[in-house]
């Protein structure tokens, strides 16, 4: 096996159910996954299964109770915020809702240049602008978009901006948490194609979270199925979808309504 780019070993996270409650919900229960360089890995599960908790834990945006997280061979489970900062460049996030994930008061240029300046040390104004123009073209936006603000864009375009922001720092690893579920059908296909192009041309590793099995099937090499905080099945995408072993995966597949008139 190749050295994994991202690996978790036995992650466990419990949330208390309320301020006064002593009961706890187990969001992650001994979760071990790995993502190899260049690989796109799907994470499937229903709401409350722990998908987003896992993603946030890997990105160190949430503290786990026990277990280990490795990135590029190093353990990052307990890294301090300042030690974590250089790694932020390598590990980027695209969130579900392109309306709340972009600061409405910043121009697109400001949104994208923040990371470039911080992480890539570029300071020359024209250099930065050229770079932003490049990135915007990559994600299918006009380079003049950089002068606008998020409110001037549609949902699909905003998601392109969010992807551009993530790409701007040239990350090795991208976590996409339901990036297309808030988008219209015709726009969803555009964004999925964009992600597929990025995956092929930039060799970025991705953790792709979705409840939509068809989307996972389109984009991912391998997938994990999560239920109640546990990984219950994993494997190559065609294998999972053609011959699911677990009853739960079979249920998910048969409940996924596919376009089928007959």
């Amino acid at each position, binding site marked *: 096996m190749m050295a994994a780019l991202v690996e978790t070993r036995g992650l466990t996270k419990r949330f208390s159910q309320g301020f006064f409650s002593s009961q706890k919900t187990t969001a992650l229960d001994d979760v071990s996954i790995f993502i190899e360089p260049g690989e796109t890995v799907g994470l499937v599960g*229903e*709401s409350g299964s722990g998908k987003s908790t896992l993603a946030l834990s890997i990105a160190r945006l949430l503290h786990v109770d026990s277990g280990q997280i490795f990135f590029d061979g190093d353990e990052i489970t307990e890294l301090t915020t300042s030690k974590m900062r250089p790694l932020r460049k390598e590990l980027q996030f695209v969130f579900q809702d392109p309306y709340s994930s972009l600061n409405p008061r910043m121009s697109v240029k400001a949104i994208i240049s923040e990371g470039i300046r911080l992480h890539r040390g570029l300071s020359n104004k024209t250099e930065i602008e050229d770079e932003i123009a490049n990135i915007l073209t990559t994600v299918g936006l006009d380079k003049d978009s950089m002068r606008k603000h998020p409110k001037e864009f*549609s949902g*699909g*375009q905003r998601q392109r901006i969010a992807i551009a922001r993530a790409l701007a720092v040239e990350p090795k690893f991208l976590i996409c948490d339901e990036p297309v579920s808030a988008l*219209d*059908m*015709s*726009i*969803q*296909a*555009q964004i*999925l*194609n964009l992600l*597929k192009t990025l995956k092929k041309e930039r060799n970025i590793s991705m953790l792709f979270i979705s*409840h*939509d*099995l*068809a*989307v996972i*099937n*389109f984009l991912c090499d391998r997938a994990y199925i999560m239920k109640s905080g546990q990984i219950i099945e994993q494997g190559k995408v*065609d294998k999972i*979808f*053609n011959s699911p072993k677990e009853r739960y995966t079979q*249920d*998910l*597949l048969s*409940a*996924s*309504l*596919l*376009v*089928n*008139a*007959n």
Partner: protein
Amino acid sequence: MQSMNILEVESLSVRFGESSAKAVEEISFGLAKGETLGIAGESGSGKTASILSILGLLQRATVEGSAKFEGQELIGAGNKLLNGIRGKRIGLVLQDPFAALDPVQTVGHQISEGLRASGWSKKRAMQHAVHLLEEVGVPSASERVNAYPHQFSGGMRQRVVIAMALAQDPDILIADEPTTALDVRIQKQVLDLMKQQCENRGMSLVIITHDLSIISHYTDRIIIMYAGKIVEESTRLKLFDRPLHPYTQGLLDCLPQIGNNENEYLKTIRGQPPILGQLPSGCRFHPRCSFAESACMHGPNPPLIPIKWGHSACIQLEKFLRESQ
């Protein structure tokens, strides 16, 4: 045929506020008794506005045209008439079961509210609420009837909302994105339940959705809307085999499918839906359409033309059917 329709909508248009742009423009369709109809379209296509306008539920909107329920005109009708129809004859299930229920009233209270308003005694209305909860598959209904919405999961809440909509035994059940907020396994249960209830009661069902896979399983007749207009009306069996509009074809092509990975990339519809107030001239889909010719761009907004099994608003239909075959 016409007279058999329980709901007959004709040249319905909706404008919001002072704007002259129409969110819904001159749409016409009928709904027969016991029929299942799907209305599909992307956000802003006018699918929800058209239904809410029929029920007089849109605020600050100008509604023109006609919508007749059993021959009675609903557009412009007063609340007295509409109150006799909303809930009683036409039940409504909305997308978000979290917002549709009052958090400080028990579900039984909410389900039976309409019945009490129609003069049922409190006791009898509550008994009926228990019966309804049983029907929609809520376990231990006689106890759960006294529970509050927060004590239910999302899927169970949507069942409660359906029980509310069914309470007065309406003739039509309209469900606006009823399962968008729910997980896939729950989605199937809820849709199966609605379909079953409609069959049992001989009720008509209208499902409004952005999800073509839902209508491909649950509705017999299908309307596709784009930018406030109906672009195609077809049947479940025909729509997916033989779309009558390039937009429908585009939507079908851009859906990822399981078990079909021959194409590395998804086909897409270029560009994005127009913004209300900046609608293109001619056919509203023409800037995104690969079949468009100058007549599509400059002519009048194309009307729906009857085809053997449905209607199409594409003036290049022959060319489209020939080349997309």
